[in-house]
């Protein structure tokens, strides 16, 4: 210290003895600290990279399988609408027209296109080129426009699922289309593939004639479920999910918000409200299948509500979503600054007016976000719906909340169980659609939060 005192005024004092913060030991310690920080950052980056890689792999595996399902192979045939087959009486009666033998028309068109095919077995194979839905397609055409009778039209039919899969290359025979055209035979043995050489030959012939095309798979988005993959759509499941979510929303939001407002704003803080609070928090962690069992026992068996109906599914999902809504709403209410409440109370607002005019509007973005995230959870939920019968095979599009229905995730679950190769890509496609809806909902939540975010 005396050294410093001897420095001339106005000059920078130089410390002769280094302080402990300048010692080598301290420097080493400092270096270790920075190294620790760097390591910590690396761990974090690795964790994020792992998670991102998993997500990419997952999305890639789904999309790479699923994108094919958005396209369908179609085959063009020349159909002669023979009056003798369709309308022998000439009455043009719609009921009669609908019942006519359209399969016969398709079969004749096929036999005509491949006159060399004979024999029961080969002809059966030939008929299997076209989807069994072809006859309904023709029936619809004729009923809508009876003038077609007596004419010859080119009609595009859906290929059967095996041909569709073969055309897409998911049922390969070992060589490409061009190689086959050049006369190179398939390398995969015939008995280990679902379509034989004759089928392939017919397909190649149709292809060469320009009678094969790939079109957007509108069936997937407009039709209900089916055992035939090429006729199976998820519109029924989408509508079912919609009805279910409407019920969930209509129940979970009013009840959840009302419960949260009461607990947060009015309820006295005592052992009872503590107990309720603990229970609500625990409910959020209850396995969802338990809610399904509850729905089965209470709503189906006791109250006798219809099985497989979006009404019951929606109630069950509302029970499951309630804790999410309540917790999100309470957090949003808590986040409203007390100064706003005081300001409103200060001008003589009653507690009810404070909540209705000031607290709830300010908490609305948070409530909305919580609600949408709860809804997204409900949209992706499968297990509880299995318990209330929403896992049934349902072809019809549900017309209301009491009709039998299924929902998207359950449809995915059911499709994933089916043996046909074509359902593999449809399962992935359905997952993509479901993910699309989820991304849409979460995006909406983010957008609303950003839009209504207020600063005080």
């Amino acid at each position, binding site marked *: 210290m005396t050294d410093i005192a001897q420095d001339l005024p106005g000059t920078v004092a130089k410390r002769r003895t280094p302080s402990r913060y300048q010692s080598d030991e301290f420097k080493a310690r400092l270096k270790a600290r920075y190294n620790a920080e760097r390591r910590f950052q690396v761990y974090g980056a690795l964790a994020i990279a792992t998670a991102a890689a998993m997500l990419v792999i997952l999305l890639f595996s789904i999309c790479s399988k699923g994108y094919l399902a958005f396209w369908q192979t179609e085959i063009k045939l020349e159909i002669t609408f023979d009056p003798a087959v369709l309308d022998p009486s000439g009455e043009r009666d719609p009921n009669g027209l609908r019942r006519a033998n359209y399969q016969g028309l398709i079969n004749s068109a096929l036999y005509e296109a491949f006159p060399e095919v004979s024999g029961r077995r080969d002809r059966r194979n030939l008929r299997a080129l076209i989807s069994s839905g072809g006859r309904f397609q023709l029936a619809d055409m004729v009923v809508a426009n009876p003038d077609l009778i007596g004419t010859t039209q080119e009609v595009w039919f859906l290929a059967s699922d095996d041909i569709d899969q073969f055309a897409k290359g998911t049922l390969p025979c070992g060589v490409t289309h061009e190689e086959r055209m050049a006369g190179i035979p398939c390398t995969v043995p015939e008995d280990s593939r679902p379509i034989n050489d004759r089928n392939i030959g017919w397909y190649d012939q149709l292809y060469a004639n320009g009678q094969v095309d790939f079109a957007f798979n509108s069936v997937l988005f407009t039709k209900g479920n089916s055992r035939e993959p090429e006729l199976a759509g998820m519109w029924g499941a989408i509508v079912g999910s919609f009805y279910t979510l409407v019920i969930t929303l209509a129940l979970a939001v009013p009840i959840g918000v009302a419960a949260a407002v009461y607990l947060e704003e009015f309820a006295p803080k005592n052992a009872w409200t503590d107990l309720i609070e603990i229970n609500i928090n625990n409910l959020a962690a209850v396995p969802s299948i338990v809610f399904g069992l509850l729905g089965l026992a209470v709503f189906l068996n006791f109250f006798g509500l219809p099985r497989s109906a979006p009404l019951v599914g929606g109630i069950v999902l509302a029970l499951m979503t309630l804790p999410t809504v309540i917790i999100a709403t309470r957090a949003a209410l808590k986040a409203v600054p007390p100064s706003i409440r005081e300001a409103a*109370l200060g001008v*003589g607002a009653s507690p009810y007016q404070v909540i209705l005019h000031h607290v709830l509007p*300010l908490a609305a973005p948070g409530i909305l976000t919580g609600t949408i995230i709860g809804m997204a959870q409900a949209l992706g939920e499968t297990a509880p719906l299995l318990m209330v019968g929403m896992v049934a095979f349902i072809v019809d599009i549900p017309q209301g909340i009491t009709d039998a229905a299924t929902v998207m995730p359950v449809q995915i679950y059911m499709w994933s169980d089916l043996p046909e190769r074509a359902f593999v890509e449809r399962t992935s496609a359905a997952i993509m659609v479901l993910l699309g809806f989820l991304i849409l909902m979460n995006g909406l939540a983010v957008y609303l939060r950003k839009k209504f975010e207020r600063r005080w």
Partner: protein
Amino acid sequence: MTASTMNVDPSAIAMSNADAVGTGRVKIHSKDVKVFYGAKQALKGIYLDIFEHSVTALIGPSGCGKSTYLRCLNRMNDTIDICRVEGLIELDGEDIYGRTIDTVQLRARVGMVFQKPNPFPKSIYDNIAYGPRIHGIGARRDEMDVIVEKSLQRAGLWDEVRDRLKEPGTGLSGGQQQRLCIARAIAVSPEVILMDEPCSALDPIATAHIEELIDELRENYTIVIVTHNMQQAARVSQRTAFFHLGDMVEVNDTEEIFTNPKDERTQGYITGRYG
């Protein structure tokens, strides 16, 4: 209202002191007011009279209970679960903790301005109109327009915001926000306005603005102001009460308190020996 209460005569104020009833009419009478936060006692029996059409300043070191006392006067402490108030507070002779008075009614009569400006996140117009609207005043649009304009004029904010009444109140500067809050309090036409350190978040110019305003408001309202700033107390108030550790140590005419404090603690505080 009599002439003597309308225009407060400084000499009359000077005569009033802690022991004697002043010449002004007593607006708020408190007797043995005790406040507990759970087991902790925050006020240890306050006896204090607040006179009509005057500014009463409450001063004292942090944690002395002056804000607690202020919040008793419009029962704002009711919002704190663990808070318990004992004793008697009368507004115009009526016990405000009695059965006949409702808190909503009380707070319409006893308005409040808070430490931090807290405009509603609504338009300037709606900030002012909210109070009258919930009390059913100014149901017609033109009536409300008059109330809004008058309140803003009285708060000295009209000229600055007349062209942007639809803009959010939160977009104003801190000083303007605080005047907006005062205008909001005035709009309900209360009898008493409580101010809890209204200038502590403001710069000196905004503070001067508010102080001028307080002086003008005295004509029509009874004002109780809590302040940490002793110069402010000296500038705006006619009477000053000194609080210390939950006790009301001394109340007197402001000039008297600052020039000739009776209690040692008061003297210590105003001369800056502690605080």
